[in-house]
């Protein structure tokens, strides 16, 4: 559904990524690892089209990214659930409205009060925080809220940037279980993470591909995990 073909990227100076090829097909589950500063976040941004590849081609849902209009990019993002590394929210709106934001901006503003929404909030353990403003939330709560927001549109692709960075192990496992479930429903999942324990845990549940950024390109990490 999202395809990177020989993609290269540079922020202006030397290339940060070269010859990256990746296919997030329906039902695929990828982990993306690599040292801090390797370019994991950058790679995810290339996937959700916040950045444009300086080389190669990104294809989103069959359309080359370069050919997408700005509205095309917006429509594409409605099919992609993004958990941003620093969980950006609208700080003046209560959590429940932030979680419902993807619905609001796509013209379905009446879902903030639905049972699905309450179930989702309950599932990420934020039911009692529904009316809190984002600045009042802890790091872990923010991360869970970001996850809920990414899932509210039941997207075809889920891109998560260090989603467990602020979560305790129990919460991390719940998150993993949910993503595995969604993956079994045919959604493509890509998780950038440092959390090797999480990766090991995932491998007991499904056949996840573990990729690593090394020497500016993407390698399959295998045996050592």
């Amino acid at each position, binding site marked *: 559904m999202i395809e990177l073909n020989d993609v290269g990227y540079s922020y202006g100076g030397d290339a940060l990524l070269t010859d990256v090829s990746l296919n997030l097909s329906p039902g695929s589950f990828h982990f993306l690892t690599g040292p801090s500063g390797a370019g994991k976040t950058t790679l995810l941004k290339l996937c959700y089209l916040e950045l444009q590849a300086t080389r190669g081609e990104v294809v989103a849902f069959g359309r080359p990214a370069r050919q997408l209009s700005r*509205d095309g990019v*917006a*429509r594409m*993002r409605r099919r992609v659930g993004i958990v941003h590394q620093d969980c950006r929210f*609208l700080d*003046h709106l209560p959590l429940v409205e932030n979680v419902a*934001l993807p619905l609001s*901006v*796509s013209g379905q*503003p009446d879902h903030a009060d639905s049972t699905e929404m309450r179930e989702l909030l309950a599932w990420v353990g934020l039911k009692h925080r529904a009316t809190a403003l984002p600045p009042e939330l802890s790091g872990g709560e923010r991360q869970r809220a970001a996850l809920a927001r990414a899932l509210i549109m039941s997207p075809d692709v889920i891109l998560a940037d260090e989603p467990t960075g602020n979560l305790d192990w129990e919460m991390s496992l719940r998150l993993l279980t949910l993503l595995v479930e969604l993956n079994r429903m045919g959604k493509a999942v890509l998780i950038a993470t440092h959390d090797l324990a999480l990766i090991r845990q995932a491998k007991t549940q499904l056949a996840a591909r573990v990729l690593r950024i090394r020497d500016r390109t993407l390698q399959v990490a295998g045996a050592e995990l």
Partner: protein
Amino acid sequence: MRPLRAFISFLVGDPRADRVVPPSGVAAHLTTFAAAAMAFLAVFALALSLSAGRLAERWSSALAQSSTVRISAPDDQRAAQTQAVLDILAETPGVESARALSDAEQRALLAPWFGADLPVETLPIPQLIEVVETQAGYDAEGLRLRLRAEAPGAILDDHTRWRRPLVRAADRLRSLGWTSILLITLTTGAMITLAANAALAANAQVIAVLRLVGARDTYIARAFVRRFTLRSLTGAAIGTALGMLAVWALPSAETASSFLTGLGFSGASWLLPLTIPPLAAIVAFWATRAASFRALKEVR
């Protein structure tokens, strides 16, 4: 019709969409205030233009009327001098027509003062010649010199001619008024652009989040555009109302000709300032819309 449809579709639509942009206290009040101040000024500029226009019209129609030549001469020379003056006037450039008033007309002119049965013939009353000018007018000094040479008893009385520069001034004042209105419009546009740019910059993070969750540009722009359009409309309505009130409350003397007391609206022209608030809204709409789409280009 396309711009109109864009205008309407921007203003209606989901009002809850506005909530995605945080309310921005001081900047909001400043926009309203600026729109109000500009509308207030626009009311005065409009009043100035309209009054100057009326004045110029009145004065120039007074000009188009006549000046007079008065001939006071001994009885035996009177007819000759009158004829001489008429001959001179006939060949003076800038004189459209000249005509000696009959005794009956002169009597009618004097009647208000001396009664209707004044024996004009027996009184040493000067003969009057009515001179109608062309648009361009004649050279008064030249004419005076010729009259003095050929009809010593003739005096050119061009009492209305002193108004000619005033008419020019009133015309100039009218175009200054319209220029002011144009400048006020442009300034309003510039101020709203600045305010919108500030709001957009302050909300860069909000815009980034909205794009991230799949908001289209029009959705984001609408939140800003509607806000600034409504603020400008409100501000301009207040400013216009106050301006009209102030113009209405100007002390009005007789309609005579004093410029200052003539400043204001009359009759149907009271409706004209009502166009100021919608105009302000339209200016705000396009200024904010342009600023929004410019700012959105920075975010993918």
